[in-house]
């Protein structure tokens, strides 16, 4: 295993930190428009045929897109077990709500058009709306909470413990800054969904999607700017208080962490990371221009750029922190002390290097096969095969 010797533990950790970002961004770029489309459904489509057009734009692809999310969960488990353990149980009820939304969504896609009744379909339309809007909002709220720090601590056995009872824990997530992050998240995915509908539909539906997309994009940009300002003025960051060993054992308790200072000091230390927020703003601006002028493919690409910039900026700002703790900062999880072992990270990297290119290739092929607009004739003429 010469390669294994060549890639240091700390390098592998950075690679896996970046891959975690790739998976989350991959999820936002693909399943993101599915969720955006679901949340836009009641606003852009008024008749049953219009709704079916909207649903069928994502009909053949949402299932594959959703795997980015499931793989994200699996990859966190494999590469960052403490993060998986602490965050999923710490956000327990919020996770449960997300799960419920994500379970109802696949079922809604499959079952909605399998019966004719208007009440049946209206109910599933609601499910699609909630299945898109709720996760889109809560993922942002979770990210906001991560930036603020989460009230957990690790015992000496590294068992995660949480403070406060269940109601406090769930409602406690809904802090103002976290809600703002939620607004940014849902509005950027609405914009993304609109850019997708602009590409895949025509006529009235596309026109409505463009109008809502422009509003959502402006909210996203404004909210993102406000969140940056808030981070600069009112929110404490986290920093190491002792020398860290980037290739040390994965035990968060070995390092000392202070809660104070600003997250944004990262921009003084590593000025190049300013590229990410700039990409975010630029991407949104160009998406807005594209939506107004009716450009199709490029608008979707600019929307992807904007989302990539926004998500990347969170990770880059916090690096090397992944999940800071407010009640016991020393328990905070960082890139240097919350990963899997050297061997597991290496094996997972090899597997990813083999399969990720394959996944991208066949996904691209599927999108190419399905290329083109979904029209009203498509859905009314193929009622037995489409949704």
């Amino acid at each position: 295993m010469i390669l294994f010797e060549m890639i240091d533990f700390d390098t592998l950790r950075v690679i896996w930190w970046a891959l975690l970002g790739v998976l989350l961004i991959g999820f936002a770029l693909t399943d993101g428009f599915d969720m955006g489309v679901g949340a836009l459904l009641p606003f852009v489509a008024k008749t049953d045929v219009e709704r079916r057009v909207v649903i069928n734009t994502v009909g053949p692809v949402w299932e594959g897109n959703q795997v980015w999310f499931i793989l994200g969960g699996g990859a966190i488990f494999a590469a960052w077990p403490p993060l998986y353990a602490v965050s999923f149980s710490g956000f327990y009820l919020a996770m449960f709500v997300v799960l419920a939304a994500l379970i109802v969504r696949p079922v809604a896609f499959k079952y909605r058009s399998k019966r004719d009744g208007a009440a049946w379909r209206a109910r599933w339309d609601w499910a699609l709306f909630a299945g898109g809007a709720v996760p889109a909002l809560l993922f942002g709220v979770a990210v906001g909470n991560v930036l603020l720090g989460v009230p957990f601590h690790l015992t000496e056995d590294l068992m995660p413990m949480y403070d406060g009872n269940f109601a406090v824990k769930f409602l406690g997530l809904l802090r103002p800054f976290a809600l703002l992050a939620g607004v940014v998240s849902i509005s950027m995915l609405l914009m993304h969904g609109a850019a997708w509908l602009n590409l895949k539909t025509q006529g009235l539906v596309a026109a409505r999607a463009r109008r809502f997309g422009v509003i959502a994009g402006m909210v996203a940009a404004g909210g993102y700017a406000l969140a940056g300002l808030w981070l600069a003025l009112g929110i404490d960051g986290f920093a190491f208080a002792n020398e860290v060993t980037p290739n040390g054992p994965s035990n968060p308790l070995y390092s000392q962490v202070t809660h104070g200072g600003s997250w944004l000091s990262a921009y003084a230390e590593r000025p190049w990371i300013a590229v990410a927020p700039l990409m975010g703003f630029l991407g949104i601006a160009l998406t807005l221009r594209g939506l107004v002028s009716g450009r199709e493919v490029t608008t979707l690409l600019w929307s992807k750029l904007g989302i990539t910039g926004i998500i990347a900026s969170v990770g880059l700002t916090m690096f090397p922190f992944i999940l800071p703790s407010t009640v016991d900062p020393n328990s905070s999880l960082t890139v240097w002390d919350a990963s899997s072992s050297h061997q597991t990270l290496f094996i997972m990297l090899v597997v990813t290097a083999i399969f990720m290119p394959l996944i991208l290739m066949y996904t691209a092929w599927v999108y190419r096969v399905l290329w083109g607009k979904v029209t009203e004739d498509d859905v009314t003429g193929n009622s037995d095969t489409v949704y």
Partner: protein
Amino acid sequence: MEIGLVELSRLQFAMTAMYHFLFVPLTLGLSILVAIMETVYVMTNRPIWRQMTKFWGMLFGINFALGVATGITMEFQFGMNWSYYSHYVGDIFGAPLAIEGLMAFFLEATFVGLFFFGWDKLSKVQHMVVAWLVAIGSNFSALWILIANGWMQNPVGAAFNPETMRMEMTSFFDVVFNEVAQAKFVHTVSAGYVTASVFVMGVSALYLLQERHKDLARRSIAVASAFGLASALSVVVLGDESGYSASHTQKMKLAAIEAMWETHEAPAPFTAIGFPDKEARETHYAVEIPWVMGLIGTRSLTQEIPGINDLVDEAELRIRDGLIAYDALMTIRAERDATSPELRATFEAHSENLGFALLLKRYVDDPREATEAQIKQAANDTVPGVGPLFWAFRIMVALGFSFIAVMLYFFYRASFRRMQFPRWSLYAAVAIIPTPWIAAELGWFVAEFGRQPWTVDGVLPTALSVSHLSVADLLISLAGFVIFYTVLFVIEMSLMVKYIRKGPFQDVAETEAWQERHIHRLRTHDGQGPFANPAE
């Protein structure tokens, strides 16, 4: 330790996992049956096979949606409800789950959309390839999930690291080629194939009884009975393989399934029927068949299979040995790099029994302070619920053998009796539709309940693995799942019934075009009548 929390967490996991497995076996088997039907279509060009592919594909789709949706719960529940487990073994257990996503689930989920939406966008051969990719993806999924589960039954290729307070992988190769995982994989997918075959035969039998779609129904039975016969044989043979591997990896589970209280001199008898009594540690009214157990478990006439009482004594020794490891671990944790090499050597020598010391955490915070009575109690805890395992296993095995008989009969009628089935056999085929699900759920029950009190056999006790949530958290989520899953189940069943009642979609234009070509071909070749169809 809050026992209420542990029990609620177990209940929720068992419920969501068993619910998930209502949909998985049908997905595993039906994906392959559909791909086979489409392959026949591509080879013969007969529209009936395309119609069959579409019809069974539609039912596959209804089932698949819930399989995927409930699978998401499984992927996240380890972190949500079993956070100490996730920390403790995530370095090993997480890898197969992530690989499942990369290698299998992406494949199946990406192409399943194209399967339904791609009929007009792909060539025949392309579409058939898509169907096979969905089937291969589903089955590879099962492989990686069972590698993960196999590791919980037989934790090979891993060691405890005192620095990180968790198990870490030492050999990926050992984890993947774990004998338990390999035997379980083939056993489980074969069970899925049997389930799908019984389902297809049952629905087809219903059509034959109702005198409709007879062409489709007969052909479906022919395909399903052949596929089902091979699979039913494989389930039983590979189940036997699982039993053999359990005799040296999970001795306690095997002894509990067989209600073997005392070590019997080789070769041990097999208790066919009896009433195990855990308190008295004996089996009432036992009907024994000599030699059989020894042959199944050890494949020899001379090797002994240890009984429960001896295994409890062994567990007690291992607890005492594990306490030496635990004591060393506490010093290593306090002293870190300053620890003497001798102490580390002591830890290494006893670390394989560390998990047994952790069994005491149920009774005391520091296992070193456990009393003699508590040690005895913890050793007794290693005996799982004998009665339920004994019966669950026997019902599963009886069902397994009966599937062979059913498949054999239908295969014989389909192959050698011109696809004519007596009415009683059709009624029977409809009636047995639920049985493979019962067998599959009982199989999982034996595997997981039989592993108690461990989540990872000999390494991590179940009571220690849970997340420290409040009971209220659990009650809310549990109630949510019960309501939610019940509603979804009712909807799923009603759609299945609706689409089975509606029957296959007739592609009239295509069928007529094909018939014209067929008549033409027959006239030009041998001049026989066009409808000399042996199937009718």
